[in-house]
């Protein structure tokens, strides 16, 4: 079998597993998860073979593994799709294969395979626990198996198909297909427990928010196709003439070049998918889904697809700019990335839900990557992408294991506490050692603990690039963000694992099964050693001991090879300081939290803390900006008090930070525009509704007649314009 054929085959097993499970083995839980994990293993083997071949082949960037297939005739030409493994996709494939396989295995344990059926469990609700009586006859509650076990594995199988498809394809349209498949799976899996209203809301929110981005992305793809007549990477991104021609022809919009505009549109898609500001709101809520889902979709693979795609289109984005300087699009990307990094990390320090912390941390880390891309350091971005996938997946799985242990404790003791609130935990170090150590490694990697961890090297490279090209704003902001990252990471670790147990549940928590701990260990190992492939040559002491494989390899992906920035001590020291400083700070603040005590920072920051905790009221803001108006437009405006409350909420929140902005909002926006607008929109919509009501007779033919008449009228007008005005 040629390598090309193998690449084609990689995505298939999970898809087959999906269909088989849905259609046939739905009833049999064991068979279902065997199928699913087996398919994951198959794909993993295939990916590893391909990746190994890729690592061993000379100048993969120049001659990537490709295999093309004429899909369907478009007039005279053919629409050609294909698979392509170049250095970037090889690296991505590497971590995708690992994380997906690990998470598949983890899911078996997480969904309580082998546990008895729940007493009151119903499909669509998380398992409530089952009562079993042990040998001594007295019965106690234990976790119960997920009612929709097979369905879960079918869904993640479909998701794996989408992700593999997105990685191996060499065509932007197929990438979009995989992209949307993943969007669907994310929707389905966030709302996996559709019995919970919050989950339902979250799934719809996630779908809608990403949709906003995807529409723009589709526009970009269509534009790109019209501009170049193809969607294959090699023919666009690896083709000087096309790039130059795209970069030089200018569009009327914002004075952007065609390349810039397309890049911007595609980037908006990435913003939606990778939950960057301002489309970040869906990711925290997405934590409603089962933790493996959060780990796989919302940390490791899907959200990083946005970064992957943006690195893909980097030539388009950077077209027309000399190396080191920025195009407008790159500036936008850099700004959004940087801003998101700091913004999300500030929110993360005030979250108590163990998963929400990680969610915001994911957002901010993705921000790091986008910032790196924005300043042209796409190698660093790719590096950080891969490392982040490992340790963030590890962290999520670890948190899942923690929650699992806590739930076990809750079931055992029967006290009613939120098993995800970190303030209910503490002292889990002794209870679940494996989870603790792996989580610690992950946390250190996330906070960029020097030398050892992968996160250090990748982050350090971003710093080095930012510093080396004198992007001071980016550099400083990212440094701050990194400080906060280290801080909240340590806060999380301390609250969760160190100190004394703060609840009985925490006392009775215990270690998870091997199916859950094994992936933790593997990922922990990966998130330590994986970083060593990217050590800069001229790094003191270590430099050159291991060749900077990352840079050599991924650097070849594009035409212009980025030269390595000269080494300087400032970024190195910065990253040392921020990571160590953040860690110590976090430990100092949270080292002894009493039972039922509040977050000490809360007193220090006062109202700001609430603002942060509420994530700068972005949900409320969007609710008020987009959701509520749509209610108005749809129905009526009888809920003024509601939005008044919302507006006040915003004014309080913002006003506490800067009274000035508050004043401004109230005087210039709130009263005249918002309320007036609200009233006006409501009234007019109602009027219009009454006006146009009779048209909707529900008779198809009448609709068709109206449509045809208008069509003919328009075509007549156009004909007149086109012919007679010439």
């Amino acid at each position, binding site marked *: 079998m040629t390598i090309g054929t193998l690449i084609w085959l990689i995505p298939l097993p999970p898809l087959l597993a999906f269909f088989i499970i849905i259609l046939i083995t739905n009833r049999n839980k064991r068979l279902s998860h065997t199928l699913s994990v087996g398919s994951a293993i198959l794909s993993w083997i295939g990916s590893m073979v391909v990746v190994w071949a890729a690592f061993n082949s000379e100048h993969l960037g120049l001659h990537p593994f490709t295999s093309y297939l004429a899909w369907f005739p478009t007039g005279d030409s053919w629409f050609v799709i294909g698979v392509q493994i170049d250095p970037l996709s090889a690296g991505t494939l590497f971590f995708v294969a690992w994380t997906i396989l690990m998470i598949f295995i983890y899911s078996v344990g997480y969904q309580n395979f082998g546990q008895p059926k729940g007493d009151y469990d119903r499909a669509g609700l998380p398992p409530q626990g089952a009562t079993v009586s042990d040998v001594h006859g007295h019965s106690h509650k234990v976790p119960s198996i997920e009612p929709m076990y097979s369905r879960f594995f079918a869904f993640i199988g479909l998701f794996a198909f989408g992700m593999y498809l997105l990685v191996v394809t060499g065509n932007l349209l197929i990438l979009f297909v995989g992209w949307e498949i993943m969007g669907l799976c994310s929707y389905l899996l966030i709302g996996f427990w559709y019995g919970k209203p919050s989950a339902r809301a979250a799934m719809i929110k996630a779908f809608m928010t990403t949709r906003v981005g995807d529409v723009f992305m589709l526009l970009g793809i269509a534009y790109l196709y019209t501009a170049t007549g193809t969607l294959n990477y090699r023919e666009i991104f690896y083709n000087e003439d096309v790039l130059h021609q795209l970069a030089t022809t200018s569009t009327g919009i914002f004075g952007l070049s065609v390349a810039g505009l397309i890049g911007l549109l595609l980037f908006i898609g990435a913003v939606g998918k990778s939950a960057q500001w301002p489309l970040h709101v869906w990711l925290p809520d997405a934590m409603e889904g089962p933790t493996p889902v959060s780990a796989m979709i919302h940390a490791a693979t899907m959200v990083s697809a946005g970064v992957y795609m943006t690195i893909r289109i980097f030539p388009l984005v950077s077209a027309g700019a000399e190396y080191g300087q920025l195009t407008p699009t790159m500036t936008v990307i850099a700004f959004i990335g940087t801003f998101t990094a700091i913004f999300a990390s500030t929110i993360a320090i005030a979250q108590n839900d163990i998963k929400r912390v990680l969610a915001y941390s994911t957002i901010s880390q993705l921000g790091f990557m986008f910032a790196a891309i924005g300043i042209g350091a796409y190698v660093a971005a790719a590096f950080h992408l891969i490392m982040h996938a490992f340790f963030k997946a590890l962290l999520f799985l670890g948190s899942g294991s923690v929650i699992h242990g806590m739930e076990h404790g809750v079931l055992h003791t029967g006290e009613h506490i939120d098993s995800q609130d970190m303030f209910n935990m503490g002292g889990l170090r002794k209870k679940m050692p494996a989870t603790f150590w792996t989580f610690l490694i992950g946390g250190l990697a996330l906070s960029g603990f020097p030398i050892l961890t992968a996160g250090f090297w990748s982050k350090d490279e971003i710093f080095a690039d930012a510093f080396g090209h004198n992007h001071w704003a980016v550099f400083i902001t990212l440094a701050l963000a990194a400080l906060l990252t280290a801080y909240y990471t340590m806060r999380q670790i301390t609250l969760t694992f160190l100190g004394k147990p703060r609840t009985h549940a925490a006392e009775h928590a215990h270690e998870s099964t091997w199916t859950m701990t094994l992936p933790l260990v593997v990922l922990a190992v990966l998130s330590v050693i994986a970083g060593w492939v990217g050590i800069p040559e001229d790094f003191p002491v270590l430099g050159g001991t291991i060749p900077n494989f990352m840079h050599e390899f991924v650097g070849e992906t594009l035409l212009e090879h980025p030269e390595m920035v000269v080494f300087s001590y400032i970024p190195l020291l910065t990253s040392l300081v921020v990571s160590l400083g953040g860690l110590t700070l976090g430990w100092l603040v949270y080292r002894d939290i009493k039972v039922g005590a509040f977050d000490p920072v809360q007193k220090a920051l006062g109202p700001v803390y609430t603002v942060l905790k509420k994530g700068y009221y972005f949900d409320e803001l969007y609710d008020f900006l987009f959701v509520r108006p749509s209610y108005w437009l749809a129905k009526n405006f009888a809920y003024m008090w509601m939005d008044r409350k919302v507006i006040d909420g915003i004014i309080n929140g913002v006003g506490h930070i800067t009274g000035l902005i508050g004043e401004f909002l109230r005087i210039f926006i709130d009263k005249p525009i918002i309320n007036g607008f609200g009233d006006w929109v409501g009234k007019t919509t109602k009027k219009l509704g009454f006006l146009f009501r009779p048209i909707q007779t529900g008779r198809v*033919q009448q609709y068709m007649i109206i449509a045809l008449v208008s069509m003919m009228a328009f075509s007549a007008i156009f004909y007149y314009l086109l012919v007679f005005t010439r």
Partner: protein
Amino acid sequence: MIPISWYLIFAAALFCIGLFGVLARRNAIAILMGIELMLNAVNVNLIAFWRYATPEKINGQVFAVIVFAVAAAEVAVGLAIFISVYRRRGTVSTDEIDLLKW
């Protein structure tokens, strides 16, 4: 010999008659008949262009074949829908099936 214009005009007429049927008929099945007429008009055009423009390329006939398949599928599903509608509402006249109104 026959100039292509004859075929085109014939097809246009057939299409418009079918269109009229679709727009004006009461009974849903009659509407389906109108749709069939329109599809046939399209096919006549396809074949005529194939014969007159590029007899050496077969694309026209291929498209016609695909249209056949689509027509068959459409009729099957359409009639099934009408029959089930008839079961539930006792009518297949389109101006009585107007549940989607305000």
